[in-house]
């Protein structure tokens, strides 16, 4: 198919963006917070993909991590605790022309937002989803989250957390229609970037669990992994991420893992130590909910008004003799 003049004209003069075009304000995160690395990775992605700021939206819930949209010079929606995903689904459904990113904390996603998380996986709507997993409630000052390791002393578990931690990877891989599951750590920025990029390019619900350090409340927790590169298992594959020679020298513990192999992906997902890093699973053929439910009708004020009226009418108590 040849390109028409119209298509050329639309692409003509598409502006080149620099990193600064995506940066806004000075992050208010604690020094050394892993959220900084995640911010740097997504800003780099936006620049490299030439995403138009007015066509890009970052949606979040509540938490330290959920402040990320504030630091992006794109559209953003700093939502309600636990509700980033339903908000993002709404954006995706009504504005398929936007690139949608979601940033959530572990409390946000795996605790109060867990039900939304499960169903969002099943809906498989096209969005890039980052779980900033610092294994603690950061913003509210150190309460245990579902991903806090057993024995962790926190303000809500002074005697140590009593339950085994929830594993976001195995949970995601257990849900029907999972189509992209990856894990990254905030301290290997090049790999973090590659994974975010692979997630962005996957059409569907691309879920990345990012092991994120919270130096404020859990200052030393990840040090053993930081200091010993062999405690990171790098998943290398042409359909996943590739390690450059510099990193390959440092991270020698590698496995060739084909992301289409869900059984091996589930095994890897269950591994806690070493921390697996890379694309665990990917299936490009899962349909996206927004495609299945695509509606050609224009969302005019009248149409929206009618829809809302119909919804409200379901709950309206009509005065005697004035039923709709």
């Amino acid at each position, binding site marked *: *198919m040849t390109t028409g003049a119209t298509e050329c004209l639309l692409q003509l003069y598409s502006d080149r963006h620099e990193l600064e075009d995506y940066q806004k304000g000075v992050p208010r995160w604690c020094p050394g917070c892993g959220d900084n690395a995640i911010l740097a990775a997504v800003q780099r992605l936006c620049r490299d993909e030439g995403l138009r700021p007015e066509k890009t939206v970052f949606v979040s819930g509540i938490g330290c991590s959920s402040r990320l949209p504030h630091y992006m010079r794109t559209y953003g929606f700093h939502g309600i605790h636990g509700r980033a995903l339903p908000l993002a689904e709404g954006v995706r459904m009504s504005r398929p022309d936007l690139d949608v990113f979601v940033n959530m904390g572990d409390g946000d996603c795996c605790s109060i937002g867990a039900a939304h998380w499960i169903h969002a996986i099943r809906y498989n709507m096209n969005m890039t989803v980052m779980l900033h997993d610092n294994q603690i409630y950061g913003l509210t000052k150190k309460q245990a989250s579902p991903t806090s390791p057993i024995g962790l002393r926190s303000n809500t578990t002074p005697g140590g957390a009593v339950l085994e931690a929830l594993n976001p990877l195995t949970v995601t891989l257990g849900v029907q229609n999972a189509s992209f599951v990856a894990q990254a750590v905030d301290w290997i920025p090049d790999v973090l970037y590659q994974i975010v990029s692979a997630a962005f390019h996957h059409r569907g619900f691309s879920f990345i669990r990012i092991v994120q350090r919270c130096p404020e409340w859990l200052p030393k927790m990840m040090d053993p992994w930081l200091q010993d590169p062999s405690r990171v298992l790098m998943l290398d594959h042409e359909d996943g991420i590739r390690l450059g020679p510099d990193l390959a*020298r440092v991270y020698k513990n*590698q496995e*060739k893992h084909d992301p289409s192999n869900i059984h091996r992906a589930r095994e890897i997902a269950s591994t806690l130590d070493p921390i697996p890093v890379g694309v665990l699973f990917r299936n490009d053929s899962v349909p996206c909910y927004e495609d299945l439910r695509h509606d050609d009708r224009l969302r005019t004020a009248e149409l929206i008004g009618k829809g809302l009226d119909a919804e409200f009418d379901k709950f309206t108590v009509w005065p005697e003799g004035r039923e709709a």
Partner: protein
Amino acid sequence: MRDGAPLVAFALSGLRPEGSPTAEGMRPVALARYHDLPGLRHDLPVVLVGASRTEEAVRSLSDVIDATAAKVGANADGAKLAVHARRIEEAVRRRVAAREAGRLTELVERTAQESEDPDFQSSARALKAGLVADGEVVDAGPDLATSLMRHLWRTAEAGKTRRFVQDAERLAFRLDGVLRAALVHTEAARAPDALRASVGTAFEEAFDFASLSRVVASSATPTTVSEARRHRIEGLLATIRGQRFFTNATASNGQAAHEFEFDRVEAALQAVRMREHEAVVLSKAMAMAELESEGRYDEHRHDPVFAAYGHGGLEGPDQERFPTPFVAVGAAAMTADEAEALLDVLGAGVPIKIVVQTDDLLGRGGEGLRRVADLAFAALRLGNVFVVQATASGLYRMRDRLARAMASPGPALICVYSGGAGTPKVAPYLAAEAAVEARALPVYCYDPTAGSDWRSRFSVADNPHPERDRVPHRFEYEEPGLARKSGEADFGWIELVALDGRFADSFWPVPAAEEVAAMVPASDCLDHAEFRPPDHLPFVFLIDDEDRLYRAVVESRLIAEAARCAERWRLLRELGGVENSHVRAAVAERERAWEERSHEPRTPPKVEEDPAEPTKVAPIESPSPTEPSSDEPYIETPRCTTCNECVAINKRMFAYNANNQAYIADATAGSFRELVEAAEGCPVAIIHPGKPRDPSEEGLAGLLERAAAFG
């Protein structure tokens, strides 16, 4: 044996003595078996289904009834329903054969109404309710080709209309939104009445709108839409809403929509020319509206580009979104000039879909054949035209290709022979099939969108025995002594002519007792120029009503035309990759080379071992060549996590690179203490302070001790 002179005279000139026998009442022996004709027609009639995709727009009646019976029968008395479904199908067939028009639901309903059997009626109604597809039912007949092709074309065009309407409405909606948003900032929108209207009825009395108007007017924000932009957007909206190419797109300016169905090539071409400019204007408006709706129209950049838009006409998707004219024309009604003009336009790539139909291949001096087959062959040579040559009887079999021809973006020429003229005793569809067998009208399809070479684009595979020059037939006949015998005969162009009653006197059937030695099969005369009267008299086998066999001498002028036909078939077949002379030569050459090589001693080919992929990648063990000497401070930048720690200590000393990862921008911009503190603070311990520059720095001994941990 009789005197051959009158036969020679006949063969050479067509002159014959009064009362000499003709082929009147006879037919080619190859058709001996086809007494019972209707039994063959299984894929007709067809249902022209109202579908959104051309691939699903044509189905045979039997197919629709079978699928419906299977579906409905699954939750009813399947066996009885199947029996009734057969009867219903038969009844519908009879109706359409008797030229009764209607959609399938209507025909089934009428069939139900005419029955007195309540059981049958209930089956018919169940079938009607569950029909898997509905649409007009069309039988073989002079209109079949046009109806079917028009239906496919309309289906394809409806898709375009849908897409355009959707685009136009989306753009108009968004441009309206821009204007509406701009309006909010105008004085008119802040007038008391405008404010009252925007609040709605419930609070009409609750506000003092005059005061409110003063308040909002005082906080006036400047309008965001310039006068020029508003003007431009209004112009775009007017163009898009006033367009005449698609019906039911947005509002109309009252002018009638353009017509795209024609029955004259000339009229279609004229319409294409006249609307070209209008199409450019609309296409341009759509492109500008696309930019405007995104807020990306930049006068400085785009004005000059759009001023030149479409000067060379529309191309690619811009052109493809517009309706494609459809012309259905009878071959006889087309003038030679029109045919010429048509080829010009097709060659220029103007998208236009043309169906040329004839029911007469041989009449009026072979006019029909020339119009249809020659036109198709000429279009084939243009390379960019979707060409299908078909018979009405074979349309159903070729429906997928026809659908593609109508849905493809470029020009298409469909040449169809429906049969009928000159063969009153033979059903039209059989005459059409006979023309295919005779290679007078080989069926083929050339699809320029299917690939880049002849092999993927062109096919003659739908012809019977495509590998042969002529289609052989076994036949049985009665000898004068009533003995039954069998033999083999070709069916070619001359036999096709013999089928046509109008040419009966071009044949002179000779009873066995009167045969002359010079008589040779006509097919031999096609291949050898030396077979000529008077030494050779070409004949074909004919049989009469009682299946008696005759050798009938043929007028030699038919031989020339038959040779031309055979020639055309051979060329087409080669293009279709069947019996291709280049391929034959290449294969022969290969075989010869192989033969030669097979005499040389052979070395076994080396088999490369395929090492199993190791699951663990062994990393290369070698120190990084990029590591600087430990005297200079440095950062392992690729491992930096952008935590802000170091840059917060000294912005000039530590800086971020293009990827927001830290490096030492200026080692002299700060103290050794700062380097050591940054190294200690770095969460990933990638800052290496090196050696101090200033030996007099305060507390150096302690700092050196702390720095030792970072190499």
